[in-house]
């Protein structure tokens, strides 16, 4: 027997929960989480539907919940099949070939071999701000986009670290998981907007609601008032909680991908140095819409995520510190 293949940990321990996640295979975990998320969304929607049915009649409940599920589902399907093309187009990414970006293509192919995934398509974004993102619903149809600024700023090892981070997202189906999350949060948001608008136009006090109240008598009216209140509270809270959950998951995913990148490259220092250079970058920022911001290697609006709870990315300094402690 000779050297063990690695001295680096192949298990990521979450400092917050103490939970241990195998870096080589958190794909299965992602899949389980996706299902849990779908069930949770279904449960929230069912609770909302129940409350709605108490306050209104069955037909409007069916309409509200039906529309929310349809719109959320459409979002999910679009996200599943088209998110890569949309994201690449939105970021203004152009395909890089072996001829015009030999260095980048070589680095990507090498890291793909180390990560044990097919080499992704490589794209370049014409921006001086150093950043990168990965997209694609499975490793067979994945793309990595990097900015020109990133290529100029980083040396080979640092670039390998960033590419490996993106490769980790690809290998573990993070892109699919995140688009699923966006869709579920979307469905709840749609339902809230529909019901809020309806309440605003005097929904509870009029039409079918009034008819049912007279059917049931006084007690029913009070019960209905409580139900309406519960409904409003849930409608306000559910999207907020779902959004916070999505952001928390998104932040933790970045730590996980950093740890996986350190394992793939066997070189946490490369990625740490890359993050340092990106942290110290002072220049024009990358302009992208809010919808794709969470996908990027570092938040395109560096320094603006003052409220920690609402950030899609963990602080760069914390990421560097964690890599250095490995």
């Amino acid at each position, binding site marked *: 027997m000779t050297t063990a293949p690695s001295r680096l940990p192949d298990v990521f321990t979450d400092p917050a929960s103490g939970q241990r996640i195998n870096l080589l295979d958190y794909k299965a975990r992602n899949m389980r989480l996706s299902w849990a998320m779908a069930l949770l969304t279904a449960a929230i929607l069912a609770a909302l539907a129940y409350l709605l049915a108490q306050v209104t009649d069955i037909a409007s409940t069916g309409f509200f919940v039906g529309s929310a599920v349809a719109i959320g589902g459409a979002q999910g399907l679009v996200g599943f099949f088209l998110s890569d093309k949309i994201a690449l187009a939105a970021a203004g990414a152009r395909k890089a070939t072996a001829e015009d970006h030999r260095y980048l293509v070589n680095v990507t192919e*090498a890291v793909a071999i*180390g990560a044990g995934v097919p080499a992704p398509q490589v794209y370049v974004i014409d921006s001086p701000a150093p950043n990168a993102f990965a997209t694609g619903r499975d490793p067979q149809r994945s793309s990595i986009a990097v900015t020109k600024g990133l290529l100029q700023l980083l040396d*080979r090892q640092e670039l390998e670290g960033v590419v490996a981070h993106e490769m980790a997202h690809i290998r573990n189906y993070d892109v699919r998981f995140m688009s699923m999350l966006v869709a579920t949060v979307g469905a709840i948001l749609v339902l809230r907007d529909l019901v809020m608008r309806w309440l605003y136009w005097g929904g509870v006090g009029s039409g079918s609601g009034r008819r049912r109240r007279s059917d049931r008598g006084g007690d029913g009216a009070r019960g209905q008032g409580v139900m309406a209140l519960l409904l409003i509270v849930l409608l306000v809270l559910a999207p907020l909680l779902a959004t916070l959950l999505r952001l928390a998951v998104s932040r933790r995913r970045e730590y996980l991908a950093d740890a996986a990148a350190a394992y793939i490259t066997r070189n946490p220092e490369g990625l740490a140095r890359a993050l340092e250079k990106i942290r110290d970058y002072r220049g024009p920022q990358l302009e992208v819409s809010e919808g794709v911001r969470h996908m990027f290697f570092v938040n395109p609006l560096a320094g603006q995520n003052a409220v920690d709870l609402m950030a899609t990315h963990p602080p760069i300094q914390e990421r560097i510190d964690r890599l250095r402690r490995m």
Partner: protein
Amino acid sequence: MATIVILVVLAALVLWGVSVYNRIIQLENRYENAWSQIDVQLKRRADLVPNLVETVKGYATHERQLFEEIARSREAMINAKGVSESAEAANMMSAALGRLFALAEAYPELKANQNFMMLQEELAGIENKIAYARQFYNDAVLQYNNAIETVPGSFFAGPMGKTQAVFLEIPEQDRAVPSVSFGGAQGQPQA
């Protein structure tokens, strides 16, 4: 009733045995495939070498000995059979190419040659891919060895005729440096 229980237990045992067997075969395929990834890169490198030597010859005319050494290593590379011979030939070639690129420093016109620059990046890229492929190979070997050495795999490995696979030594080196070796003298896979 009792026969049903026995049948169910037997069926469960058979299914379990099949899954352990399949796991061993899968891991064996994975590490063998990982070796072929290294082999692909080694062949690509051997294909680029004559082109490189032709380019360098135009500028550095007196380095006949080094050119011959590179040619020999390429010959050995092409004729190599099996993992250990390939690894040895790859070492030889890495060392010779390392010297060639060091030598290029003394020829500013060569360094500025477009074709040379392209070949240099391509070969550095291949060295890097070889390093990653070797790392992936060792990971795969570790998983395979663990599977056949630990219970329950160890019960199956004997009857299946499976023995431990060998690691490739990974030298502690800097990946940014183009010349990547198979670890010099201790580079051959060891049992």
